């Protein structure tokens, strides 16, 4: 057992001394209790945290609305959005978590929806591209994409819009170089990078100001996490 003092100081159940103890791969595991106490009761509790491979109800909070779906654990967030909720703005393109066409915001962070299982997202706030439009009112990133013709076939566009929105939320005064570095997680085949860059740069030059839609959603998120 660790003493209390050590735990308090390190904020964790161990310290550098532990790290320095085992000096090679061959070193036997040093038995030591971690901060979480092991007990048979805990073991059974952990079993309670297991969802079987069968479908079960999964509740997702998407664009401020709750949706309960019956899903197997292996269903990705992307498939749930597209197939079960008909939110098809996020596109299924690469199968390898590289192209960004399925970008959504999870708790405000740009995320590949194909790299998350739907069950993982219970309790999180998911924002899809559909949230950036309310009738004729649209987020200024969408406006900017249209203004700069940052699209051709349009299949990568919603993902790029979401990546751009998330990027500008966190980098409101981004430079050209920042934009080129930050948005490297998305692919466009038609070749619309010029327009996307111009759009992001223009918004950044205005301080990346959020439009009302985005402000509202960001506001909701802040309220939620507060």
């Amino acid at each position, binding site marked *: 057992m660790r003493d209390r003092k050590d735990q308090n100081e390190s904020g964790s159940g161990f310290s550098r001394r532990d790290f320095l103890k085992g000096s090679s791969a061959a070193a036997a595991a040093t038995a030591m209790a971690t901060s979480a106490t092991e007990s048979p009761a805990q073991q059974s509790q952990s079993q309670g945290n297991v969802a079987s491979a069968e479908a079960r109800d999964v509740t997702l909070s998407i664009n401020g609305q709750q949706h309960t779906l019956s899903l*197997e654990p*292996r*269903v990705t967030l992307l*498939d749930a959005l*597209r*197939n079960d909720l*008909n*939110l*098809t*703005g*996020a*596109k*299924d*393109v*690469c*199968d*390898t978590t*590289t*192209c960004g*066409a399925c970008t959504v915001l999870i708790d405000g962070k740009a995320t590949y929806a194909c790299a998350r299982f739907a069950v993982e997202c219970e309790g999180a706030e998911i924002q*899809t*591209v*559909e949230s*950036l*439009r309310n009738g004729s009112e*649209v987020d200024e*990133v*969408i406006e900017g*994409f*249209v*203004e700069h*013709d*940052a*699209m*051709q*076939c*349009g*299949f*990568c*566009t*919603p993902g790029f*819009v979401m990546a751009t929105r998330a990027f500008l939320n966190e980098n409101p005064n981004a430079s050209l170089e920042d*934009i*080129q*570095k930050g*948005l*490297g997680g*998305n*692919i*466009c*085949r*038609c*070749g*619309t*990078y*010029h*327009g*996307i*860059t111009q759009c992001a740069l223009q918004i950044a030059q205005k301080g990346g100001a959020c439009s009302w839609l985005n402000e509202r959603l960001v506001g909701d998120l802040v309220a939620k996490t507060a």
Partner: protein
Amino acid sequence: MAERTIGWGPRSENRLIGSEVQRIDGVGKASGAAKYTADINTPGTLYAKLLTATIAAGKVTRLNVAPAEEMEGVHAVHVLNGEGAEIRYEGTLLAAVAAERPEIAEDAVRAIEVSYEPSEFFVDDDNLEAAEAAGRTKPQGENTQGDVEAALSAAKVVHKGYYGINTITHMCLEPHGSHCEFTGDEDLTVHLSTQNVSGTGGQFAGPLGIDESSVSIICNYIGGGFGSKFQAGEWGLACAQLAKKAGRPVRLMLDRSTELKIAGNRPSGFAEVTIAGDADGNITAWDSHHWGTSGINGSVVRLSLIPYVFEIENRNRKATGIVCNRGPNQAWRAPNHPQLSALTATAMDDLADKLGMDSYDLFKKNLDKTERPDVYAAEMEVGAKIIDWKAKWHPHGKGESRGGVKSGVGMALHTWGGRAHAAICQLKVHSDGTVESYGGSQDLGTGTKTIIAMTIAETFGIPMSKVKVHVGSNAYPKSGPSGGSTTVGGVSGPNRRASQEALWKIMDLVAAKYGVDADSVEAKDGYFRSGGKTICSWTQACRLIGPMPLEVQGTGPKDDGLTDQGVGGVQMADVSVDTETGIIRVNKFVCVQDCGLIIDLLTAKSQVLGGMIMGIAYALSEEQVMDNNTGRFINADLENYKLPRIGDVGELVAEMYQPDSEYDRGVIGLGEPPVISSGGALSNAVANAIGVRVPVLPMTPQRVLEALKGGQA
């Protein structure tokens, strides 16, 4: 006084045409509201997954789908290539399963029992000797003009070089696929990701034993085609068969890996070139043998187009196809041109180097051997100014090196036809002043709908908001497939004609109603005028139409000056090469492009910029990697099939060359041209930077370093 002849109006009077107009479906696309084929989820839709061959060649010895059929949630299984079927390339479709959920369909595909008897395969397309030894070559012709040998021996300088360009795929971000639904036994509705809305109904009808008139093809949005989506495809037919068997709608989209393996690629091209010139830089002789593969068909890029753009008096050319166990090729933007442009422009640049000439001067010197010397000369001048050619060009490899980084400039020329495809449009002018246009065309991303709306609004002098454009259904009047830069001309011609005729009819109504001479009536800014006096508004005039809309059909193409064909274009690149890592970065890349009359300057520029970026892709990073061990396409994913990202394209300049002489030619297609000469321009810029030729595209760091090493030896 408006003369009643079909034609585009005076350039100075255009309100919309030639300006930058945002695409009318832009918000729909950017906000995710636009529904692509992959997004169609009608109630009860089943999801289809595919079993594909994992060998490059051989036979299917066993295919047992019973375990899949028996699974709960599986509604239909369709065998495409069953026992005894021959496999000629990896990824060949064997069976398709439709199930309640995609994950069940995947389980079912995994449950299918399959075995193969593999046979010998050949995938090595750049190795002519090996192909000959394997009996995989197919002669694709040879022809000669003039006296090549005499010209070679008389030449001041003779250059021999080896050049090449690897196979690439289309990599449509929306894979090929469809959503099929039968209503009754006969009527089939297909949402199809297609460049050929009007032309694919029959492809479904035959194999399914139904009438073409029973097949509705719908494609409101398509996520990329690039020449690979003209057919229903075996996957499309499989989807329809599954829908028929299951009695439910089925959606079948290819997965990424299968998309890359079987849904189309652009043939490779490799060449041994001998090129000769006189002291002034006149090219006096050309002798080339090129080879490559289109996959299992074993054809090669077209013999008749090399040397590209330049007609050389003494010329011999030969082509050899290689039969490879690779998926079949499809038209890829400007079929044949990018490869042949690269093979030609690089050899010319090397000849200039040997002559001690600036390659700009050599290209210029030989413009008399092209179809449009004046246009090229003017475009080269514009391009050179933008890229600052004079200041940046130096003899190959002689620029300064900063921390191992060397820079250089290079150029190449291109040409394309771009004649409007055949199309019909049905125009309806309603009594409330709104206008609708119907046509079985499609919007590949060029802005088809916007261009139609602009054309109509310009003609009537009304805002675009009064125009509603309907494309994307084979229920509408037939339109040609969108391929070969034919669509903008294809749709703008008929819509202009129909609009002009409709306008004249309305003018007649106005003239009769208000008692003026019909020939004196003009339409502008939403009003009709005669003799300088406003008579009535557009809306008032349209009320004269009556309860039934005024309908006019427009057709095309016609020889009335609305459209033309034949463009030039020049690309100039400024690159930096890190000689210690072989990494190339594009500093600035310019395309000066003519395309006759430009309708939407904004989307036209987008098209050019897009072509240039696709050019950067195949010049620097993308290629199909075939494994000689397994015959498999081992980088059939977006991690190892490398496409440029937003930081990879440098500063891009799309300069539209549109003097009045071009405007007066009418509309000419633009999709293909700007993708053609990128390979040559970028390769020449790299050669200018580092002083050695990186012979094969894409110029990966490996190839750059190998070229540098070879150059030192």
